[in-house]
C-alpha cells in the first residue's frame, strides 16, 4: 500500500506539474529566453520521467489511481488514473512536447514574447495531460475545455496577424462547441451509468448500450470528439489554426490536441463501441474525412495547409478504425496514432525550417532545396515516405494493417465501398506526400532561394529524433512499439489485446493489392497533377471557413438587428413592452379562474363627493390631453392631488390628507423649478404609437386596475387584519391614540426608518447632481442661453410678500411645531411638521430670494439629514441598552410643573429624527434646483436677449 500510496501522490503532482511549471516560467520570465526554456524543458522532462516511472506497474496491468473528492454531489471528482492508454498518450504529449520546446527555443524570434509562449504551451500541455489521466469524465471535460482555451491562446499568439486572431477564434468556437456537446453527452452517460468515474462507467457497457439515452449520448460525445479531431464537417478550423507559430502546429495538430478526440473515442470504446450506431456514425465520418481531406491536401500550396489536411485525413483514418468497433481496428488505430505523431511532427518542423530559411511556405515558390538544406531534405523525405506508406517505415506498417481492416468491412451491405474509399484515401496520401517533398526539395532551384541555408542544430535535432523513431519502428516494430501498442490497446479495450505487426502479410492479403493500387494511383495523380489542378481550380467547392464566417456574421447581424436594436434605450417602447407583459401575465394568472363575489355593502355616495369626483376626473383628463403645455399640465396635476387629499380627509384618513397636500405642494414647486429650465412645451407626437398605442395600453392597464380595486373594496379579507392589534395596542402599548402615527413611529417604525433614509438619499443625489452640473462648462453655457431676462416682469421680490413672509415664516414654524407635538395622538407628526417648516422656508425663498436666505442660513441641510438619520438610529439603538430590540419604544407620563402631565415617548425622539431628515432633504432639494436657476440667471444678464421660453 505504502509503495502505491507514493505513486498515487505522484499522479496529482504529475497532472499539476505543467501548471506549476507555467507559474515558474512566469516567475523566471525576466531572466531571459534560456532560463525560460530550461524551466519549461525541466518541467516536461520531470513529468516524462514520472510517467516512465509508472511503466513497470502499468506494464504489470495495474491502473494507477489518485482520487480526491471535488464536488461528489454532482459526480465531479478529481480522480486520476494511469493505464496503458493514458501512458501512451502521456508519452506522446510529454515526449513530443520536450522536442517541440527545444525546437521553439530556436524557432521564435527575439521580438516574440517567449515566456508567454512557454506559459501557454505548458498550460496546454497540462490540459492535455489532464485529459489522458482523468478517471472522471467531468474532470476530463474540464481539461478538454482547457485545451480549447489554451490552444486559443497559442493559435492567437501572433495577435498582430488578423489571420491568427480569426483562426484562434474559429478553433475556439468549433472545438468549444464540440466541448459543450460533449458536456451534455457525458452528463447523459454519467446519469445512465450512475457514476461519472470512468472506472465505474467502463464496467457498465450493457446498461449503457441498452439505455434509450445511449444514442443521444453517443451522438453528443461523437460531436465533441469530431470537432476536436477535425472530422467532417468540423474540419475547417484546423487549416486556419495554421496561422499559429509552427511549433504550435507541430504540437497541437499532429501529436496532441487533435488526438484528444481520438483518445476519447478510444477511452469510451468499451462502452460505446460495438453497436450499429457507433459504426455508422464514427466509421463513416472517419472514412469520409480521410478521403476528402487527403484529396484537398493534394491541392493545397501552403506547406502547413498540406500538412493540416493530411492531418485531418489521418485523423479520419484513425476515427474510421475506431469506428469499426473491432478489436483489430482498435489495435491498428492505436498503432497509427503513434505512427502519425512520429512522422507528422517532424514534417511540421521541417515546414517551419523551410519557412524560416526561405521566408515562404508556398510550395509553388519553393523548389530544389535539397542541396541548400540537405538535413531537412533527408528528414522530410523519410517522414513523408512514412506518411505515404512506403515500406518499411512505420507508416507503411500501420497503413497496411488499416487497409486490411478496411478490406473486411461491409458498409450497409456493400462490401466494396469501404475498401474502395480506403484505397482512394491512401492514393491521395501517396500523392500529396511526394508532392510535398518534391515540391520543396526536388526539381530546379528557384532563383529567389539562392541564399537559403540549412537550419541550425537546435532546429533540426528535434525532428531528427522523431524521424529516427519512424525508421526504428519501421524496422523493428514489435520490439520498439509493439509492447506500447499492446499496452495501450489492452487498456482501451479492457482486455488483453493481440498485437501482431508484420511487414509481409502474404500475397493473399487484400491490403497488399490495395497498397499497390494506392502507389500506382498516387503516381498517376502526380503525373496528371497540372490537369487535375486545373480541374480543381475550376470546380466549385464549399469552404467551411467561409460558411462559418457567414453563419457567424449572420448570427451577429441577427443579434444586432434584434437584441441590440431592442436595447437601444427607447424608454417608451421598453415601458410599453413592460406594461403589455404585465397585462399578459396577469391575464395568464386569472384566465379561467372564477371571480370572487362581493361580501360587503357599497358605501353611499354624496353629492359633494360626486362633485369632487367630477372635478378630479375632468381635470385629470385635461392634464393628460393637454400635457404638451407643461405648466398647465402641472397645474392640473396639482388640482388632482388637491382633490385626492380632500378625498382622504373625507374617507377618514386625516393624516393622509395633510401629508398628501404638503407633499403635493413641494413636488409642484420642485417641478416648477425644473420647468423653469426645461422646455415649456412638449412637441405633439404624431407617431401612431405615442397616441393610439399608448392610449390602448394605458386604457387596458387602467381598466384592469380599476376593476381590481372595485372587486377588493367590496370583498372582505379572508382573515381579520393584523391592524386589529395595532388599534388595540395603540394606546396601551405604544402610548398614542393616533393609530396611524403609532404604526409609523412604533409598530412599523422600521419602515419609517427606511423611508426617511430614502428621502435623505434623494436629497443627496439631487445635491450631488446639481453640483456636478454646475461644474460642467457646457451646462453653464446652456443655462445661460435658456435664461433670457427680456420679457420678465420686474421686481423679483415684491415688498408685500416679503413683509408678509416675516409673519408667515414664524407662523409656519408654529404650525409645524404644533403638528409635530400632537402627531402621536392626532393627525400630524414629524414628517408633516418637517414639510410645513420646509414650505415656510420655501415661501421665504420665493419672497426674498435664495441668495439672501442662504446667507442667513446657519445650519447646512446635509447636516440636518445626517442628524436626522443619526437621531432615528440612536433612538432605535437606545433600546439595546435595556436589552430590547431596535426601535422598542418607551413612554411615560411625566408630571413636571408647570407643564401639567405630559407624555415623554421615545417615539417622539424618533419622530424628531424624521422631522430633521425631512426638513433637511426637502430644503436641500429645493436649494439645489434653485442654485441651477441662479447659475443661469447670473449668466443670463450677460446673454443676449431672447424671446421668452427657451427651447
Amino acid at each position, binding site marked *: 500500500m505504502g509503495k502505491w500510496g507514493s505513486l498515487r501522490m505522484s499522479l496529482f503532482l504529475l497532472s499539476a506539474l505543467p501548471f506549476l511549471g507555467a507559474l515558474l516560467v512566469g516567475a523566471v520570465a525576466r531572466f531571459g529566453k534560456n532560463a525560460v526554456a530550461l524551466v519549461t524543458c525541466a518541467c516536461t522532462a520531470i513529468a516524462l520521467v514520472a510517467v516512465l516511472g509508472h511503466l513497470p506497474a502499468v506494464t504489470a496491468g495495474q491502473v494507477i489511481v489518485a482520487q480526491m473528492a471535488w464536488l461528489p454531489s454532482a459526480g465531479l471528482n478529481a480522480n486520476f488514473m494511469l493505464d496503458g492508454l493514458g501512458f501512451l498518450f502521456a508519452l506522446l504529449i510529454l515526449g513530443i512536447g520536450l522536442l517541440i520546446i527545444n525546437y521553439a527555443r530556436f524557432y521564435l524570434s527575439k521580438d516574440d514574447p517567449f515566456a508567454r509562449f512557454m506559459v501557454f504551451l505548458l498550460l496546454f500541455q497540462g490540459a492535455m495531460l489532464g485529459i489522458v489521466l482523468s478517471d472522471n469524465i467531468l474532470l476530463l471535460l474540464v481539461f478538454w475545455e482547457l485545451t480549447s482555451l489554451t490552444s486559443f491562446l497559442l493559435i492567437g499568439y501572433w495577435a498582430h496577424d488578423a489571420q491568427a486572431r480569426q483562426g484562434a477564434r474559429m478553433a475556439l468556437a468549433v472545438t468549444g462547441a464540440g466541448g459543450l456537446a460533449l458536456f451534455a453527452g457525458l452528463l447523459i452517460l454519467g446519469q445512465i451509468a450512475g457514476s461519472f468515474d470512468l472506472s465505474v462507467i467502463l464496467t457498465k457497457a450493457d446498461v449503457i448500450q441498452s439505455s434509450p439515452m445511449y444514442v443521444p449520448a453517443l451522438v453528443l460525445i461523437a460531436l465533441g470528439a469530431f470537432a476536436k479531431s477535425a472530422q467532417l464537417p468540423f474540419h475547417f478550423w484546423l487549416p486556419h489554426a495554421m496561422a499559429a507559430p509552427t511549433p504550435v502546429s507541430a504540437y497541437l495538430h499532429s501529436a496532441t490536441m487533435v488526438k484528444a478526440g481520438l483518445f476519447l473515442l478510444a477511452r469510451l470504446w468499451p462502452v460505446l463501441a460495438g453497436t450499429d450506431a457507433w459504426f455508422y456514425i464514427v466509421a463513416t465520418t472517419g472514412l469520409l474525412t480521410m478521403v476528402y481531406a487527403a484529396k484537398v491536401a493534394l491541392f493545397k500550396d501552403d506547406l502547413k495547409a498540406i500538412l493540416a489536411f493530411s492531418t485531418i485525413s489521418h485523423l479520419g483514418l484513425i476515427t474510421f478504425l475506431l469506428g469499426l468497433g473491432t478489436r483489430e481496428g482498435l489495435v491498428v488505430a492505436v498503432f497509427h496514432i503513434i505512427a502519425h505523431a512520429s512522422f507528422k511532427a517532424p514534417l511540421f518542423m521541417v515546414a517551419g525550417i523551410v519557412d524560416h530559411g526561405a521566408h515562404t511556405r508556398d510550395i509553388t515558390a519553393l523548389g530544389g532545396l535539397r542541396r541548400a538544406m540537405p538535413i531537412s531534405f533527408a528528414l522530410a523525405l523519410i517522414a513523408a515516405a512514412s506518411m505515404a506508406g512506403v515500406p518499411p517505415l512505420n507508416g507503411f506498417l500501420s497503413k497496411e494493417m488499416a487497409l486490411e481492416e478496411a478490406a473486411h468491412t461491409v458498409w450497409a451491405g456493400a462490401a466494396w465501398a469501404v475498401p474502395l474509399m480506403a484505397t482512394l484515401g491512401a492514393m491521395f496520401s501517396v500523392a500529396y506526400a511526394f508532392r510535398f517533398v518534391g515540391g520543396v526539395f526536388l526539381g530546379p532551384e528557384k532563383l529567389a532561394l539562392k541564399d537559403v541555408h540549412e537550419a541550425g542544430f537546435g532546429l533540426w535535432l528535434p525532428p531528427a529524433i522523431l524521424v529516427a523513431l519512424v525508421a526504428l519502428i519501421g524496422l523493428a516494430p514489435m520490439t520498439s512499439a509493439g509492447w506500447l501498442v499492446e499496452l495501450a490497446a489492452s487498456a482501451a479495450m479492457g482486455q488483453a489485446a493481440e498485437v501482431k505487426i508484420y511487414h509481409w502479410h502474404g500475397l493473399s492479403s487484400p491490403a497488399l493489392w490495395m497498397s499497390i493500387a494506392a502507389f500506382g494511383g498516387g503516381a498517376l495523380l502526380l503525373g496528371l497533377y497540372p490537369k487535375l489542378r486545373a480541374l480543381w481550380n475550376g470546380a466549385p467547392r464549399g469552404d467551411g471557413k467561409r460558411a462559418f464566417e457567414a453563419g457567424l456574421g449572420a448570427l451577429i447581424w441577427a443579434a444586432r438587428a434584434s*437584441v441590440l436594436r431592442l436595447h437601444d434605450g427607447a*424608454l417608451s417602447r421598453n*415601458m410599453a*413592452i413592460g406594461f403589455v407583459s404585465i397585462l399578459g401575465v396577469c391575464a395568464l394568472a386569472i384566465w379561467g379562474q372564477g371571480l370572487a363575489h362581493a361580501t360587503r355593502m357599497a358605501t353611499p355616495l354624496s353629492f359633494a363627493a360626486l362633485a369632487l369626483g367630477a372635478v378630479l376626473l375632468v381635470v385629470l383628463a385635461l392634464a393628460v390631453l393637454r400635457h404638451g403645455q407643461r405648466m398647465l399640465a402641472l397645474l392640473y396635476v396639482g388640482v388632482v392631488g388637491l382633490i385626492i387629499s380632500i378625498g382622504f380627509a373625507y374617507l377618514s384618513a386625516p393624516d393622509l390628507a395633510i401629508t398628501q397636500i404638503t407633499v403635493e405642494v413641494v413636488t409642484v414647486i420642485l417641478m416648477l423649478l425644473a420647468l423653469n429650465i426645461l422646455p415649456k412645451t412638449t412637441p405633439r407626437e404624431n407617431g401612431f404609437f405615442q397616441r393610439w398605442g399608448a392610449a390602448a395600453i394605458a386604457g387596458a392597464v387602467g381598466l384592469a386596475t380599476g376593476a381590481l380595486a372595485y372587486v377588493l373594496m367590496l370583498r372582505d379579507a379572508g382573515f381579520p387584519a393584523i391592524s386589529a392589534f395595532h388599534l388595540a*395596542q395603540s394606546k396601551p402599548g405604544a402610548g398614542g391614540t393616533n393609530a396611524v402615527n403609532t404604526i409609523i413611529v412604533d*409598530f412599523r417604525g422600521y419602515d419609517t426608518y427606511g*423611508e426617511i433614509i430614502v428621502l435623505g438619499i434623494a436629497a443627496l443625489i439631487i445635491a450631488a447632481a446639481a453640483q456636478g452640473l454646475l461644474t460642467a462648462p457646457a451646462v453653464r453655457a446652456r443655462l445661460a442661453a435658456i435664461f433670457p431676462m427680456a420679457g420678465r416682469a420686474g421686481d423679483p421680490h415684491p415688498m408685500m410678500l416679503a413683509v408678509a413672509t416675516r409673519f408667515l415664516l414664524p407662523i409656519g414654524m408654529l404650525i409645524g411645531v404644533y403638528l409635530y407635538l400632537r402627531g402621536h395622538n392626532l393627525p400630524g407628526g414629524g414628517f408633516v411638521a418637517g414639510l410645513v417648516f420646509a414650505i415656510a422656508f420655501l415661501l421665504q425663498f420665493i419672497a426674498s430670494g435664495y441668495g439672501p436666505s442662504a446667507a442667513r442660513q446657519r445650519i447646512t441641510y446635509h447636516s440636518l439629514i445626517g442628524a436626522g438619520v443619526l437621531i432615528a438610529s440612536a433612538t432605535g439603538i437606545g433600546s439595546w441598552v435595556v436589552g430590547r430590540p431596535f426601535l422598542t419604544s418607551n413612554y411615560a407620563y411625566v408630571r413636571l410643573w408647570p407643564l401639567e402631565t405630559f407624555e415623554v415617548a421615545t417615539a417622539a425622539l424618533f419622530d424628531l429624527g424624521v422631522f430633521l431628515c425631512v426638513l433637511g432633504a426637502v430644503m436641500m432639494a429645493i436649494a439645489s434646483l434653485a442654485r441651477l436657476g441662479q447659475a443661469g440667471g447670473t449668466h443670463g444678464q450677460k446673454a443676449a436677449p431672447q424671446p421668452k421660453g427657451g427651447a
Partner: protein
Amino acid sequence: MSAHFVIAPVILPAALAGLMVLFARSPAFQRLGAVLGASGLIALALYNLTQASLGPTPYFLGNWPAPFGIVLVLDRLSALMLALVAGLAGVVLAYVLATGWDRRGAYFHPLFMFQLMGLNGAFLTADAFNLFVFFEVLLIASYGLMVHGGGAERLRAGLQYVAFNLLGSTVFLFALATIYAISGTLNMADLAQKLPLMPPEDAALIRLSAVLLLVVFAVKGALVPLQFWLPRSYAAAPAPVAALFAVMTKLGAYAMIRFGTLVFPTTLAATGALWGNILWAAGLVGIAVGAFGVLGAARLAPLIGFAIIGSMGVVVLTVSAFTAPALAAALYYAVHSTLAAATLFLLADTIIARRGGDDLAQAGPKMAQGGLISGLFMAAAVAMVGLPPLSGFVGKVQVLQALSAHAPVAWSVILLGTLVTMIGFARAGSALFWRVDTALSVPKHPAQPIAFAAIFALIAAMVALSLFAAPVAGWLAVTADDLMAPQAYINVQSLPAVAP
C-alpha cells in the same frame, strides 16, 4: 437578550452613512468610515453565516410580536446574501479608493453605505411591505451611485433606469395592497400560513398578486422582457458601481426564491406551478437574449450587462424547477455570476482607463499593464461563460444536473447560450487585447496595485468557489432543503394560530 447581530448589518451602514452626511466636508472621514463600514459588514456577515448555520434567528423590531410588528429573520439564505454583499462591497470599495472614483462627485460614500443598508435590509426582512421599503432604499441609493460623476450619457441612462424601476416599485405596491386586502397580513410567514386556508374563490386574486410580485422581482432580476434597462444603465454607471450592482439582479432571484418557497410554494393550490412556468419561459428567453447581446454588443460594458442577463436566465431557469437540488444549484450559480460580473466590470474600468474606451470595433492603443489585464480578463470571461476550471463550470454542472428532468430544452438552451456567449467574449477579448493600433502611443497609467488586488480577490473567490465546491454545495444543499421545508422559518416567529 435580543440577537442584535441580525439587524446590525442594516444599522451599521445606516448610522455610518448618517455620520458621513453630517461630516460631509471631510473626505478623510468619509474614506475612514467606508473602510470601517465595509470591514464591519464583512465581520458581521461571517458571524451571521455561522449563526444561520445553526438555524433561523428572528428579530422582532420594536419588541412587537409577529405578525403585528416587523420581523427580520436571519436564515441560511439571507446570511448567504449578506455575505455576498459584504464581500463584494469590500472589494469594490478597495477598488474605488485605489482608483479615486469616490472623488468624481459628491456623497459617494454615504450613498454606498446606504446602498449596503438597503441590500442587507431587503435580504433580512420577513415582512413583505418592509421588503418594499428596503427595495426602495437600495434602489434610490443605486440611482445616486449610478449617476455618480455625472455626464450626459450617465444622466440619461440614469433617467431610464429610474423610470423603469419606478414602474417596478409601483407594481410592487399594487401587489402588496392586493395581498393585504385579501389576507389582512403583510408578514411573509403569516402569509404562508394563511394563503392555503383562503377560500377557493379567492384563487384568482391570490394568483394575481403572485404574478404582480413576480413582475417586480423580474424587473429587479432583469428577466426578459423586463430587462431592457440593464445593459445601458450598467454600461453608463461608473464601472465599480456596476460591479456592486451585479448583486442587485440577485436580489430579484433571492426574492423569487424566498416567495416561491415560502409564500407561493408549488404546494399552494391557488398558484401551483404558475411561477415555475413563467420563470421557465423567462429563463429560456433570457439566456438567449443575454447570449445574443454578448455576441452583438459593440462595447465591453453593455456586453457584460448582457452577460448578466444571460446568467440571470440560467438562475431563474434553474429556480423554476423549485426542487431542492435546483435551488442549491441556482444559489451556487447566482453567487458565482455575481462575482464574475463584478470582476468583469472592474476590469472594464481598468481597460477603459487605459485604452480610452471600450469600443470593440475600434482598435485601441497598447494598454499599460496590458498583459496582466488580458490574463485577468481571460479568467473572468472563462468564469462568466461557464468554462472550466472556474466556478461557472462547476455551477453549470450542477445546474444541468438539477434540470435533467427538462434536459432536451433546458440543456440545449443553456449550452447553446454558453457557446454563443463564449464566441462573444472571444471576439471582445481579441478586439481589446489583440487588435492593437500600433500607431497610437501607449498612454501611461499608474499601476494601482490595490485596484488589481481587488480584481485578484474576486478571481480568487471564484477559484475558491470552484475548489471548495463540495463544502459550498453541501451548505447550499442544506439551505435549499430549509427553503423547501420552511416550517422552521415560520415557527421561529411564534405566530398566533390561524383559523380561517
